[in-house]
């Protein structure tokens, strides 16, 4: 299911499947949150790394959209080409995860962003990621 995120952008269907919420959408900054459930775990009983990479990718895709503008994005959607994520701490069902995405640099053909995941109200990082997005040339 896809819901409108309040900024004119549709949430990704895959993020809808996971159940994350967008809390803030500003220029160059997007914050998502997710209350972890059993269905978000791996066989170790802790949050699957894929949950974090999904939320970081989604937050940063939104960050790039916020600086490109909706029209540019619809004409030539950007896509993730590279991600590096470090998983620093485990999270468990019942924990509320906050993912913040921030713009590092938006060029004409590539954009860079970084994302951090924490438990709500805690300083320590659960994961940190750096992403590169490709911005396709405008269709003529």
């Amino acid at each position, binding site marked *: 299911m896809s819901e409108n995120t309040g900024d004119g952008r549709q949430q990704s269907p895959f993020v809808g499947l996971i159940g994350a919420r967008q809390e803030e959408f500003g220029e160059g900054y997007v914050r998502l949150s997710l209350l972890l459930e059993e*269905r*978000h775990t791996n066989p*170790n009983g802790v*949050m699957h*790394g*894929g*949950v974090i990479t999904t939320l970081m990718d989604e937050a940063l895709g939104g960050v790039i959209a916020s600086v490109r503008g909706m029209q540019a994005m619809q004409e030539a959607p*950007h896509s993730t080409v590279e*991600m590096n994520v470090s998983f620093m701490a485990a999270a468990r069902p019942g924990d509320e995860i906050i993912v913040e995405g921030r713009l590092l640099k938006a060029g004409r053909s590539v954009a860079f962003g970084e994302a951090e995941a924490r438990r709500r109200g805690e300083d320590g990082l659960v994961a940190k990621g750096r992403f590169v997005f490709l911005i396709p040339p405008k269709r003529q």
Partner: protein
Amino acid sequence: MLRNSFARLSGARLKSCEKGSATASVTLRPEHAGANGTAHGGLLTTLMDSSLAIALRELRGEGASLHSSIEMNASFLAEARPGDELTIEARISHLGENVAFGEAQARRRADGELIAIARVTFAIQQP
């Protein structure tokens, strides 16, 4: 079907696994898409991570201590869309005492196009 709750969400199936390698497949559905209608990067990384963790489990044995991903680098080479069937191949390249390294790739079955590749580092819990 992959053996954990989160990867099961995707409807992926584990095709084979042996010591140090695993193969999974998934047929992309509309709910796997990102905002631009193509497969969400998070889906691909989830399946590559899970396939590698399974390959490592097969290599280390069911009774061995836990291992967990600590680092993942993924590159996205081409777009995949709902309806596409992807094959994920995972292989452990090195198993040490404290860490293990693995590589995975996702290809579209129909034309063999490479969609994504990843390298994952695992920490092995000391018993």
